[in-house]
């Protein structure tokens, strides 16, 4: 029996760290914060074992900066934090989006605002993950709902980051991060790893922001390719520019590189939508309660469809629109005052959308979702 694929009791944070290693992560820069600290602790032990580097920086701003710097040096790089640290990282996440430097930022969400309740779960940073840094930029955010899925989506986050030259945010939450589940990790040989695109053009011809392809190759510093990276608007060589004819193609490309690849990026599970009357759309830890409620409702003869989003950003608008088109009711439970529901309401007729919200640190119980399903169904 292969020792690497045996069942293990593992915490979500630990699965995130193992997923990062499996994806080829070789640099972690972070700062202690509940409930994400375990990711740093595991990686401080595991990274040097595989020749990787770990550093505990002086704050979260420095952490994300070091991560971007390491990525520029060619390493797959990760940081992990929670709400307060995530807020501090925002400016440099925008820098990574602007300069198209791959990196993965894990936010193990805890109850906010401010210091909030560090050991209580939340899904309050969904909109911050999308719009947290100033200006317009695309972003990818994934959200796991189990320990095993945390492993898988961490691998996926690295793959997306490298493939699309973009920061990728993994939105975990306190329950997923701290919960222990019995999981079987995949055989490392079977894990798909995406490596950064490389080029063989001579260094003097290299254009790190060439608009020909959606994603131009990014050559690491230190290997003969000398070029400029800046948070200013830049031309194809990376030099600052004020020329609209240089800014516009770049702006179009950084959105295009995500929008053209939605079929690759949008990850979700759906079932029972074909003959449903009511649809439940959920993600992260709330998807567990939702799944339970959907099963209970089906046992009672209700026709309920279930859509679990694993990719939160970009929002799977066509998927939700298509799934909800024929239905009477869409229920969106989430641990906030209604964030992803805003997106659902944007693509589904608003009167069809029913929100179930909780932002006090407690969980949404399956019974609450079940009651909402039955209430809707009686009404029709």
């Amino acid at each position, binding site marked *: 029996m292969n020792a690497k694929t045996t069942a293990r009791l593992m915490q979500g944070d630990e699965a995130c760290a193992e997923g990062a290693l499996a994806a080829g992560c070789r640099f972690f820069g972070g700062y202690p914060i509940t409930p994400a600290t375990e990711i740093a602790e595991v990686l401080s032990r595991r990274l*040097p074992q595989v*020749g990787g580097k770990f550093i505990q920086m002086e704050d979260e701003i420095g*952490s994300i*900066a*070091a991560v971007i710097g390491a990525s520029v040096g060619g390493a797959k790089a990760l940081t992990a934090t929670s709400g307060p640290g995530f807020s501090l990282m925002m400016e440099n996440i925008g820098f990574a989006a602007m300069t198209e430097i791959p990196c993965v930022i894990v936010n193990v969400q805890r109850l906010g605002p401010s210091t909030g309740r560090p050991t209580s779960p939340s899904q309050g940073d969904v909109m911050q993950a999308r719009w947290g840094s100033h200006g317009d930029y695309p972003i990818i955010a994934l959200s796991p709902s189990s320990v095993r899925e945390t492993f898988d989506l961490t691998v996926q986050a690295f793959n997306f980051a490298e493939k699309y030259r973009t920061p990728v945010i993994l939105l975990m939450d306190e329950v997923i991060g701290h919960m222990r589940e019995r999981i079987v990790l995949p055989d490392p040989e079977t894990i798909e790893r995406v490596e950064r695109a490389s080029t063989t053009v001579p260094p003097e011809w290299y254009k790190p922001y060439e608009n020909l392809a959606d994603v131009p190759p990014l050559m690491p510093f230190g290997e003969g390719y*000398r*070029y400029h990276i800046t*948070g200013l608007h830049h031309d194809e060589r990376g030099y*600052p520019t004020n020329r609209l004819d240089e800014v516009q193609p770049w702006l179009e490309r950084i959105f295009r590189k995500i929008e053209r690849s939605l079929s690759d990026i949008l990850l979700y599970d759906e079932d029972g939508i074909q003959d449903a009357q009511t649809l439940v759309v959920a993600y992260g830890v709330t998807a567990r309660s939702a799944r339970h409620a959907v099963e209970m409702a089906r046992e009672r003869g209700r026709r309920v469809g279930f859509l679990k989003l694993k990719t939160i950003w970009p929002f799977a608008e066509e998927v939700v629109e298509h799934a909800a088109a024929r239905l009477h009711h869409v229920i969106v439970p989430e641990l906030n005052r209604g964030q992803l529901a805003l997106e659902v309401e944007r693509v589904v007729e608003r009167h069809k959308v029913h929100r179930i919200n909780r932002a006090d640190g407690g969980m949404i119980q399956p019974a609450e979702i079940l009651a909402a399903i039955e209430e809707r169904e009686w009404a029709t």
Partner: protein
Amino acid sequence: MKKQQSLDDLKNPRESRVHERYLRHSKKFPNVWCAGCGIGIVLGTIVRAVDELQLNKSDVAMISGIGCTGRMPVYVDFSTMHTTHGRALAFATGLKMVRPEMKVIAVMGDGDALAIGGNHFIHAARRNIGLTAIVVNNSTYGMTGGQYSPTTPIGVRAATAPYGHIEQPFPIAELAVTAGAAFVARSTVYHVQELEKYIAQAIGKEGFSVVAAMRYCHTTLGRINRWGTAPTMMRRLKEQSITLKRAEKMSEEEKQGKIVRGVFVERDIPEYTQLYDQIIERAQAEAA
């Protein structure tokens, strides 16, 4: 084959060769700095120091934050990165860790390095990671128009201190020594050869090295305080500065308002990325 000598080579052989080799031909000149600014002088000393050390250009990275000095890297033919305000050293830390063989130079202004980036500055020094921090100190925020910075002297007027500045300035070199840097020196843009020597020593040093390069800003702080034109302010740098040797013999009162030039510390302490390599060895030995 003997290389044809150009007129420039005859005038100042080393100068023209160095500029040709280290400035980017693809970059759209002229530069962003005001006529008479000292940042270009610092840039010149850095490339001459790199030349003197005979480093491969691909092994040199120049990282900056925001401000007038933040615009320095774009002109040089190294691997260059213009990052966010105050964070140059943090970006440089990540790069140095995964590319320890590279010479990573962080160029920062005084506000960049010591106000918004003060935390990274002291911690990079404490960690003794092998970066070179060059702080180009004009005692103000030049790009935004002459607001007071962490190094603005008491009593000076600034765009945000119209009644005179009341905060104590940071002494950059002394701060870096206390925080744990392996090499710390200070000079001015008037003392170009000395500055170049210190920068070469700093880049050559294993461990965290700091060079504080005093300059002036005649278009903002100079204008507000009526200190005169660039040449006048350049002369002030000469007149105000004293060597470390001389300063040691002077009383605190006599040293007031003086720029003390010299090497403040040079010590052999273990460098961070080399220590981390030992961590890797230890971790792999334990795992095996």
